[in-house]
């Protein structure tokens, strides 16, 4: 019997587990995919939003404002890469757009956001020379930043697991039964776990999980956002995250560096049938290219290395839904977490914990809780001299497997062993960047498969890209 069951191991479920892991509780995350961070978490803009955007008085406004610093603090503790690069919200010469910039500034002040200022187009271009000549007025959001959302999640869950939390992957919740002690949760596979408290962090599927206990008061509207990611050659095209004011043509196509040094453009916003609709479309990618070029005309789209689409979980109310379940006791829904959900993830977790506490969950601090996680990128951050010394002790770090991103065998083996362990090729990619570079795994994939096979004692033919049904090989010759 667990104390807390968390449905969903995305950034919200993962951060909740991490924040709960400081207390003397038995925690288990239930994840339907083969790895963590597999839903909206792995395919979003990776932006730490300043907090000027949400409607004052909403949960989004409150948790965004609280969340920025909380996120930076936790990211420091668990070694999740982020950068406070600041963001620009740009108007392009029309009085309406300039009025919007001023409105967002005022709204930001009302939300208690510090470090906002308004720049003229020329002042902005002095800071960001690649910005379009047409940019006339800019909201400069100095507290904004960028973070790698899946690395943040891996780090949070790794830290939670190091502190005793458990993770069950390939556990697709199928039925939830209320029992005298709490909940009996059955997976599609038939596996059953029980827990006293239940938190629904199921992202785009959170309405379905709610329905399993009889709650029908919200419906998730999946919205797909398409992106194009560019080579590191383009990574320093801009240093800030460049937004456009919302307009009829599109909402929030950004141009941003990533923490790994690439350039990201997107997203579109299209309602889709189901959360699994993550295909890219020619029309979507065309819109991304056109609108990104409006902000930063010099972006070279011949340098695109991959495109992807992520599904965000919106709801008609427009705000986060973080509240006790209505039909059962001892359950909290954390749903409709679209933007600024990533920014707010630590604040959301803390807010959900307050609700659990109000329901009677006893929070007793663990004596031996460790807030930090080993830096998985310690090796790549070393100087040549330090690397040399380290390799002499650990030769596997001297063998480079991914040539584009310079990832060694040692780093890949670590990612397969360290919490939460990588089970598939994409899992290794998200943890180490092997296959994330310009050749997109063309050279390293066979090596990564061999290492997975070796470490997990699994035949090559069973190695998957991202879980059941995605085997790369169809047999031996």
């Amino acid at each position: 019997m667990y104390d807390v069951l968390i449905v969903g191991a995305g950034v919200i479920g993962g951060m909740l587990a991490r924040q709960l892991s400081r207390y003397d509780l038995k925690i288990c995350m239930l994840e339907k995919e083969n790895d963590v961070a597999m839903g909206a978490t792995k395919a979003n803009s990776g932006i730490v939003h300043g907090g000027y955007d949400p409607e004052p008085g909403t949960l989004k406004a409150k948790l965004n404002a609280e969340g920025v610093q909380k996120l930076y603090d936790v990211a420091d503790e668990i070694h999740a890469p982020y950068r406070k690069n600041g963001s620009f919200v740009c108007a392009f010469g029309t009085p309406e757009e300039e009025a919007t910039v001023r409105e967002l500034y005022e709204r930001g002040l009302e939300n208690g956001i510090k470090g906002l200022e308004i720049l003229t187009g020329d002042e902005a271009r002095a800071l960001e020379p690649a910005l379009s000549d047409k940019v006339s007025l800019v909201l400069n959001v100095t507290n904004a930043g960028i973070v790698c959302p899946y690395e943040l999640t891996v780090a949070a869950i790794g830290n939670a697991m190091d502190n005793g939390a458990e993770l069950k992957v390939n556990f697709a919740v199928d039925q939830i039964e209320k029992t005298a002690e709490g909940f009996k949760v059955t997976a599609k596979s038939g596996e059953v776990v029980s827990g006293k408290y239940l938190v629904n962090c199921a992202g785009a599927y959170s309405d379905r999980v709610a329905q399993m206990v009889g709650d029908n008061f919200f419906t998730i509207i999946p919205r797909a956002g398409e992106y194009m990611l560019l080579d590191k050659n383009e990574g320093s095209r801009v240093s800030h995250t460049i937004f456009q004011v919302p307009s009829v043509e599109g909402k929030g196509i950004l141009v941003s560096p990533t923490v790994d040094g690439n350039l990201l453009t997107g997203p579109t916003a299209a309602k889709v049938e189901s959360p699994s609709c993550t295909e890219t479309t020619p029309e979507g990618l065309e819109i991304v290219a056109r609108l990104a070029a409006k902000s930063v005309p010099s972006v070279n789209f011949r340098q695109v290395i991959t495109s992807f689409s992520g599904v965000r979980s919106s709801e008609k109310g427009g705000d986060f839904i973080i509240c006790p379940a209505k039909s059962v006791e001892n359950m909290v829904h954390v749903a409709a977490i679209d933007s600024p959900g990533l920014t707010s993830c630590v604040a959301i977790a803390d807010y959900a914990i307050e609700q659990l506490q109000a329901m009677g969950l006893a929070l007793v601090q663990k004596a031996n809780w460790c807030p930090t996680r080993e830096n998985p990128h310690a090796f790549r951050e070393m100087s040549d001299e330090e690397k040399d010394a380290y390799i002499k002790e650990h030769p596997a770090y001297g063998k480079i497997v991914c040539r584009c991103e310079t990832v060694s065998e040692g780093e890949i083996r670590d990612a397969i062993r360290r919490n939460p362990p990588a089970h598939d090729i994409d899992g290794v990619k998200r943890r180490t960047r092997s296959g994330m570079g310009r050749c997109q795994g063309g050279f390293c994939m066979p090596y990564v498969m061999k290492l997975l096979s070796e470490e997990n004692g699994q035949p090559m033919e069973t190695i998957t890209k991202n879980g059941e049904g995605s085997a790369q090989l169809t047999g031996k010759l």
Partner: protein
Amino acid sequence: MTAHDIVIVGGGPAGMAAAVAAYDSGVTDVVILDREDSVGGILRQCIHNGFGLHKLGRELTGPEYADVYRKEVEKRGIKIYCETMVTAVSTDRVVTARNRQGIMKIQAGAVVLAMGCRERSRGALNISGTRPAGVYSAGTAQKLINCEGYMVGKKVVILGSGDIGLIMARRMSFEGAKVEAVCEIMPYSGGLTRNIVQCLEDYGIPLYLSTTVAEIHGQKRVEGVTIAEVDENRRVKEETKRYIPCDTLLLSCGLIPENELTRSAGIPIDPITSGALVDENRETATPGIFACGNVLQVHDLVDYVSDEAEIAGIGAANFVKNGAVTGETVATKPGNGVRYVLPQRVHTDKGNDVALFMRVTQPFGKVRFTVKSGDEVLATAVRLKAAPGEMEKIVVKSEKLALASEPITVSLEVL
């Protein structure tokens, strides 16, 4: 830090031929650094035949061709470091590399860059749709099948009719897979004619020209692709879209020279070849750093890679022995019907004949190439046909070269 006269980055066909040529030019302190566990580069997975006809006068498989050079390298006692990846080359020729022993820094007298190329990925092609397993670049599939002994799919569509794609169409068929189609976005194939005949026609595999893969379907593993014809601007014609069920998509859509080291050393790159700008000795704009093979320009035959590497190896040896080549250079430029000319600059007063290499912009029938400097005709050559997939070579005699004072232009006229 250690020191060697010549450091060769890459032990594929280019690197090995450069090493042998440098050694035979009298510089014996040559080392080869290669990132893989054995030398030979991409030839190691090219188990088909067709290698060596021009250079060695016999037909070999890729591994056999590589072996010929490996033996020459070993015979000379040239040191090879395998599983050693070069992570930086500086303009003053300090080479930094990493292997299981640690980080090594070598002060080189001259450097030969021979890193080869990589395949254009699905992402770079920007094919829309889902992102399932079963989408491979043709070379990755080739490695898994030929080197690792695993099959990658049963029902296959291939996008791109470059040579690797054609070879893989045949290879997959050999192993029992059904190759449903090879699609080529251009109105002509970029592959060698012999490969179209021997790899597609002989196996009844259809080649659809002016056709691309518009969408990839399948959540976890490829379930099918939508192919469609394209117009002259390579835009999909909606009404021609059709679905082909398959479990595998192989991509053979062009090779990109791997010039990350070259770029980070600040060496200027030709935007057309995506390789360094070089002179007739294959010396880059940075003195003492040479480049050859597919990292310089993508070749269609390994035989020509070896030829080019010998030029670079000799150039590097001469640099070590005699210092930099002095004197003025004249630029070369592509004219009508020619996409690029390599080398991009030549010394005109050295008394040597210089071979110019080029690719044409589209398939032509009978053409005459003319090499001119101002009004001076330096060379002409007639070809019964010319195609972008087949590199052209025209030699300019030394006495003609001496007359060149203005940029040298190579153009063609259709006869």
